[in-house]
């Protein structure tokens, strides 16, 4: 029975769907490599399964409280984050809820605590919480919606981030950490997936789902993602410096686009994390090497003692790179100024040089004034026919439409000769040849 392909497929589907439901990113190709004889079937059918699961999951929730759910942004072991609209304020938010499968007393307690923790934090680089609520025993909270991408997206896509921007991002995140630590809160799950980027760059630290305040007790001693976990966390002996380590590892990956610890086998991964980095991977700029290797040191006591110290160290990097930016700016400005001077000179001397040669260039102006009668030709030329035959039309062109409305009650005008006289006087000024002036007298006659 084991050789039966349908049986194998159906059994594989069990594991595959289970992993999808757990929020894992599952690569279908992994299954293909593992079961080459089924590769075609897997490529054929697994996406359909995935789609069924995704459609089902996405539509499990539509509105909670005053938040209308639009689409799923992400899901973790415990929570799901949706993009949602807050009806009362008409704004977009990120809405987090506990997955229905994960609802139990302890998860509910943790969820509420997460909301409270974020509620205490107010920092320009920590995603703020807007609201918390419970509906039908379903807890939820709304946070500021950050479009992203997350650092994980950037790493996955291999998008080059300018070195200066990385330094700025690093500094922002270190300051967010320093602030959180100063409030007695440790994040404990810093990883590229929990860092969002806005234009700027403006980095946002999010997902305090595993955070604790330092006086609290830890539920589930092994928290976080092993790849970004400091070695001491594996022994359940973490502190603020473990956050610094995780941030350091995340930043390294932003330069290298590959996991610092790529091991897929969990035992190997644990070993590698425990051994620590012997040296930084290639691709880290010189000015960051020292700082990052210090931040990611395997021994906590050799790391920065506080996130603030980390931030300050990063600030020096920022300054030096800022100086080069400034230098570059100065050079550019100088070059632009020189260029401007050059062109100004060229213009000046050029004009001076050319003036006598083609006298038309400069003299034309006086010429216009002097020989004004020569310029009007365009007007008569534009008139399609002799003025005599088309006077009405040509006058309509010349004068505002009102004039025609003035026409109909001409008795009025005729009864009052002084007005007529004024019209006669005005006419020539408006342009038509003086000979056309008396037309007003002619017009009423048909009546």
């Amino acid at each position: 029975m084991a050789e039966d392909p349908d049986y194998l497929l159906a059994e594989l589907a069990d594991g595959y769907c289970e992993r999808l439901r757990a929020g894992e990113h599952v690569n279908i190709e992994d299954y293909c490599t593992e079961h080459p004889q089924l590769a075609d079937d897997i490529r054929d059918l697994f996406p359909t399964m995935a789609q069924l699961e995704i459609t089902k999951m996405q539509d499990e929730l539509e509105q909670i409280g005053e938040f209308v759910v639009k689409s799923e942004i992400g899901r973790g072991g415990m929570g799901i984050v949706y993009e949602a609209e807050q009806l009362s304020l008409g704004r977009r938010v990120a809405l987090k809820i506990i997955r229905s499968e994960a609802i139990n007393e302890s998860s509910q307690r943790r969820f509420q605590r997460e909301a409270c923790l974020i509620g205490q934090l107010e920092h320009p680089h920590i995603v703020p919480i807007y609201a918390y609520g419970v509906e039908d025993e379903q807890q939820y909270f709304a946070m500021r919606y950050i479009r992203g991408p997350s650092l994980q997206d950037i790493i996955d896509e291999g998008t080059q981030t300018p070195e200066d921007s990385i330094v700025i991002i690093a500094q922002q995140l270190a300051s967010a950490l320093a602030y959180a630590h100063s409030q007695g809160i440790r994040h404990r799950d810093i990883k590229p997936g929990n860092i969002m980027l806005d234009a700027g760059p403006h980095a946002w630290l999010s997902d305090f789902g595993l955070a604790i305040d330092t006086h609290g007790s830890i539920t589930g001693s092994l928290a976080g993602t092993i790849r970004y976990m400091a070695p001491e966390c594996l022994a359940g002996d973490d502190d603020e410096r473990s956050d610094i380590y995780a941030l350091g590892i995340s930043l390294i990956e932003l330069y290298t686009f590959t996991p610092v610890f790529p091991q897929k086998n969990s035992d190997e991964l644990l070993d590698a994390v425990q051994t620590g980095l012997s040296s930084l991977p290639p691709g880290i700029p010189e000015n960051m090497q020292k700082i990052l290797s210090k931040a990611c040191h395997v021994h906590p006591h050799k790391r920065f003692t506080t996130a603030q110290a980390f931030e300050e160290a990063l600030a020096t990097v920022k300054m030096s790179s800022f100086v080069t930016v400034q230098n570059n700016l100065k050079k550019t400005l100088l070059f632009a100024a020189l260029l401007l001077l050059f062109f100004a000179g060229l213009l000046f001397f050029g004009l001076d040089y050319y003036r006598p040669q083609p006298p038309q260039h400069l003299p034309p102006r006086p010429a216009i004034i002097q020989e004004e009668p020569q310029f009007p030709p365009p007007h008569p030329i534009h008139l399609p026919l002799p003025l005599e035959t088309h006077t009405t039309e040509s006058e309509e062109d010349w004068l505002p439409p009102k004039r025609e409305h003035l026409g109909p009650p001409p008795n009025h005008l005729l009864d009052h000769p002084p007005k007529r006289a004024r019209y006669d006087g005005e006419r020539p000024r408006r342009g038509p040849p003086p000979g056309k002036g008396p037309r007003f007298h002619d017009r009423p006659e048909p009546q």
Partner: protein
Amino acid sequence: MDNLETAEQLAELLETASPQLLRIARFRIDPRLVRRISPEDIIQDVFIAAKKRLHHYDNNRHTPFLWLRLILMQTLCDTHREHLGVQARDIRKEAGAVGFDPGATSATIAYQISGGGHSPSVSAVRRERAQHIQKLLEQLSPIDQEIVALRHYEELSNKEVATILGIEIKAASIRYVRALRRLKEIVSSAGYFESEMDNG
């Protein structure tokens, strides 16, 4: 858990099984009933019934989870009859794999997709989408529909589906893979999922 003898074992089982039972209840409950009875209430009834019937549990006939699911199906059936005056869905028959209510599964799937019983209003877009998917699923045979529902909406394993349908696991596998292939054909000819296909 392989066996179910003591009240402690039952309590443990109820704890671990409740999320999935709740999911199944939400999936199978008639939309007309949602406003009157919450799926949570039904699960409560299931727990009470399970405690009463614990001594009837036969390890050879059911796994503990499937036994609970069976009780859930009976409870749902009773609730439907009580409130709607009819046997809205022949769940017992369904559970015994004797026959399927042709309209039932696709309607529930579409209902589930349209947002289940949670929302006060179902947006037009979503309703449209649900109808679209329902149309696609309706093109599957009732057996195929039911198998897709059991595997993906009730989240049952291959083995559990075989037990519920009372067929060999191999036969259940063949039916499932066949149903998936047909669904895939229908879906790709309708061009529905293509744009949002996600392999990850």
